[in-house]
């Protein structure tokens, strides 16, 4: 199978290199033969990469531990879904997945555009094939997933923290996003080369763009969710380089999605849009690179290796090549209109773009600062989360404000009438929420204001930001209320207009309203989802409570109206780990809420024969005499402790299974969406004495719920739309006429 895989990957490389060459040659020669051949090359490469993926998966499923990839990321005892998912547990497999997704997407582009966009297609295929060739070169010569070693009976197994349902689907989701941006990028470059910088390139790829943006966003949320339920520190975002790597292309992609509307409606921002799509693609490549190269040390970068230089060259050439091409074509990208007023939709889009790109630039600077400072001064300087938070939260709040303003402010120049009509009610709703906070939390508000002035007097700007923090959550809620009010008002007016015009019932009117213009109304739903996410982030980070206490069984820990009793514990040996399972009861405000189980696990290193033997013996005793079984598992713990003292290498990999009680009861509205989150930090297998870390995270579930709303909105946006198709066809007809 490994020979087959090697062979398939090599042939795939040949096909895709041919596709790149033939597509380029076809722009010089006459006839369509070469272009046809290039397109077939793309399809063949796709089939061959699929074959390689199949060969590797076959190795995983059949426990072929002579393959290095299988040996490192799988083991006999690994459950089947994790064997399949282990494909993207390692670097070579991840790069193969990248190449696979790209080849599939390229094939779809080739198949759907065969008889369209004839002038641009050779260049589109050329760009796609070059990117594909790059990844296949990596897969063939630098990080081959089919490296073999000696015959081995069992593998090391996937890092236990990655054995999580969300971690299985998170990387492919993220990759769909990363890879997807290649398509609009390829169209953009083709448009530049062929000087067809009209509407076609972005209209044709609009759904690709939304699709990629959507998967990137959902992938980021899934990654946060995984961190939240798996890493046991009660949070979901730490400004880790790997997280930042996925956030940056999402930010520039968001900017692109918005500013391209200005090009579509007004013929403005053409250079800016090209720049954004180039940046987004480069950041997607950079993101893959950061995650995979370990160039910036990160707690959860699961890979380190030698692909760095290749990536750096590819990235550098792509970025500078594209920007030079852009500069050569500046004459074709003249704006057809100009900004008329600071108070206009055009301006609000411009400002939202500045902030999104500004945040992306800040994140890029702070993330790569260790590299920059080392190159400049020879000293590595790292930037921690407080810096990211201080700089980014105010801009995120400003963006939230623009989410409310952008869709409703008038084009060209907002009039007083436009303001009265659209913003008076939402503005009052937002203001009222803010006043409510000041009334409820009067003392905190007064302290914060006086803190700001005291710091200002001392010219201590850091202190000013410390004091302003108090206002972030209420400001966020007020802005959220403002945005929700604008959207509700829009829906209400839209429905009312349809009811008057066509005499439809409210539900029919609502459904048809959305269906007839999916992009607009889907966009509103996406905005609502974003608002809900913001609420979740603001509340859960500002009002979170935390405690750590060590207790014996039957002991109790109290925190923020909760009481948790430690009922007892049991030991277990399952799959490939031993676990100390703690059983706790939770009371919320005096009412019994739930019984939870939180585990601390240890995955013994099966390469120690005696450890393996003890583990297998304990497993066979499972379900038998409980006393003997517990003693057998305790024996494993004793053995691991003894080996740790003498082995000089890793004896076990620890992991934790947190327990979470979610409150959705309307009986306690102040706790709606709240999590009671328990992590056992250390459990003594003999006495049961345990160290519990407990978090109360208010409204944290809004974050995940907001993600769900985003899914609905984005799905609406990518649905085929008759209106969109007509516009694209019209643009193509104009283009054909001009060409003829």
């Amino acid at each position, binding site marked *: 199978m490994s020979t087959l895989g090697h062979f398939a990957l090599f042939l795939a490389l040949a096909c895709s290199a041919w596709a790149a060459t033939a597509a380029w040659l076809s722009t010089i020669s006459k006839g369509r033969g070469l272009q046809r051949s290039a397109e077939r090359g793309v399809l063949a490469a796709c089939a061959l990469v699929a074959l390689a993926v199949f060969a590797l998966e076959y190795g995983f499923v059949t426990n072929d531990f002579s393959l290095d990839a299988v040996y490192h990321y799988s083991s006999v005892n690994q459950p089947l879904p994790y064997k399949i998912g282990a494909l993207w547990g390692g670097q070579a497999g991840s790069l193969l997945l990248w190449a696979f997704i790209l080849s599939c997407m390229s094939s779809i582009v080739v198949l759907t555009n065969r008889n369209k966009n004839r002038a641009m297609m050779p260049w589109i295929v050329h760009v796609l094939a070059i990117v594909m060739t790059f990844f296949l070169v990596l897969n063939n010569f630098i990080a081959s997933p089919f490296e073999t070693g000696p015959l081995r009976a069992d593998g090391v197994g996937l890092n236990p923290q990655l054995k999580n349902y969300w971690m299985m689907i998170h990387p492919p989701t993220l990759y769909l996003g990363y890879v997807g941006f290649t398509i609009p990028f390829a169209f953009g470059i083709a448009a530049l080369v062929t000087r067809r910088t009209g509407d076609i390139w972005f209209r044709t790829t609009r759904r690709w763009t939304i699709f990629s943006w959507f998967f990137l966003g959902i992938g980021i949320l899934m990654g946060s969710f995984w961190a939240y339920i798996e890493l046991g*520190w009660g949070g979901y975002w730490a400004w880790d380089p790997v997280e930042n790597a996925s956030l940056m292309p999402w930010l520039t992609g968001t900017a692109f999605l918005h500013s391209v509307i200005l090009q579509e409606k007004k013929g403005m921002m053409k250079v800016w849009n090209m720049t954004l799509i180039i940046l987004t693609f480069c950041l997607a490549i950079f993101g893959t690179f950061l995650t995979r190269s370990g160039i910036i040390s990160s707690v959860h970068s699961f890979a380190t290796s030698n692909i760095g230089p290749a990536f750096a060259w590819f990235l550098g050439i792509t970025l500078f090549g594209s920007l030079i091409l852009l500069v050569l074509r500046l004459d074709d990208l003249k704006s057809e209109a100009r900004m008329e007023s600071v108070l206009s939709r055009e301006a609000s889009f411009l400002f939202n773009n*500045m902030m999104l790109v500004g945040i992306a630039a800040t994140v890029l600077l702070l993330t790569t600062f260790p590299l920059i400072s080392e190159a400049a001064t020879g000293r590595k300087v790292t930037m*921690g989360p407080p810096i990211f938070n*201080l700089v980014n939260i105010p801009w995120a709040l400003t963006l939230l404000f623009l989410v409310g303003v952008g869709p409703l402010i008038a084009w060209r120049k907002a009039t007083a009438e436009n303001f009265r009509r659209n913003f008076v009610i939402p503005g009052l709703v937002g203001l009222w929420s803010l006043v409510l906070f000041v009334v409820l939390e009067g003392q905190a508000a007064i302290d914060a204001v006086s803190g700001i002035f005291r710091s200002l007097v001392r010219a201590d700007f850091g202190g000013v930001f410390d004091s302003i923090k108090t206002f972030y959550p209420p400001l966020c809620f007020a802005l959220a209320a403002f945005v929700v009010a604008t959207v509700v008002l829009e829906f209400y007016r839209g429905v009312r207009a349809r009811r008057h015009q066509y005499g439809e019932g409210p539900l029919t009117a609502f459904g048809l309203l959305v269906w007839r213009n999916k992009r607009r109304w889907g966009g509103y739903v996406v905005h609502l989802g974003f608002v809900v996410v913001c609420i979740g982030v603001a509340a859960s980070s500002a009002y979170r409570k935390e405690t750590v206490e060590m207790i014996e069984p039957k002991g109790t820990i109290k925190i923020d109206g909760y009481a948790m009793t430690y009922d007892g514990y049991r030991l277990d040996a399952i799959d490939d780990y031993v676990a100390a399972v703690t059983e706790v009861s939770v009371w919320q405000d005096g009412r019994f809420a739930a019984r939870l189980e939180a585990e601390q696990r240890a995955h013994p290193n099966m390469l120690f024969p005696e450890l393996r033997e003890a583990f297998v013996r304990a497993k066979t005793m499972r379900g038998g005499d409980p006393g003997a079984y517990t003693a057998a598992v305790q024996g494993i713990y004793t053995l691991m402790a003894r080996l740790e003292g003498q082995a000089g290498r890793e004896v076990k990999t620890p992991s934790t299974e947190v327990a979470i009680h979610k409150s959705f009861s309307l009986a306690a509205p102040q706790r709606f969406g709240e999590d009671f989150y328990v992590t056992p930090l250390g459990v003594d297998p003999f006495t049961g004495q345990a160290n519990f870390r407990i978090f109360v995270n208010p409204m944290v579930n809004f974050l995940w719920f907001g993600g769900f709303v985003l899914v609905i909105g984005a799905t609406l946006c990518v649905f085929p739309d008759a209106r969109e198709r007509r516009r694209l066809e019209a643009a193509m007809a104009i283009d054909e006429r001009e060409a003829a």
Partner: protein
Amino acid sequence: MDGRRIKFVVIGLGIVATMVFMLVVATQKSDGGFAYYVSVKEFTEKGEPKGRFRVNGKVEPGTIERMPDGRQVKFTIKDKDGGATLPVDFAGIIPDTFVDDADVVVEGNRRADGVFEATTLLAKCPSKYEATGGAGADPNGTN
């Protein structure tokens, strides 16, 4: 340049200037997460510089001394290339992955008594089991 354009330029420059200003403020704050990233060797050789440090090294096996409350630990880290060592005191949440020989990053600075007082402790377990014994080798070398 007409008035309208000037307005846009002023607002745009204002946004950029504010961002830069906030970056400067954030990095100047003493608790702001700005830290020098050094190895144990660099830290011990370069004297007693001011500021916060993130020192990376390996946990010297056998030096981990956990306090009974489970939230304090004393240990020694050594340079990855050998040589320098640094005693560390840490109070806080001790990660699961903190074991002998683990790669760690401690953040803080040295106290007057020469012990490094860490406020955060990141640990990454040696990711490959076979790191010392060679792929698939018997760890005890008995067969």
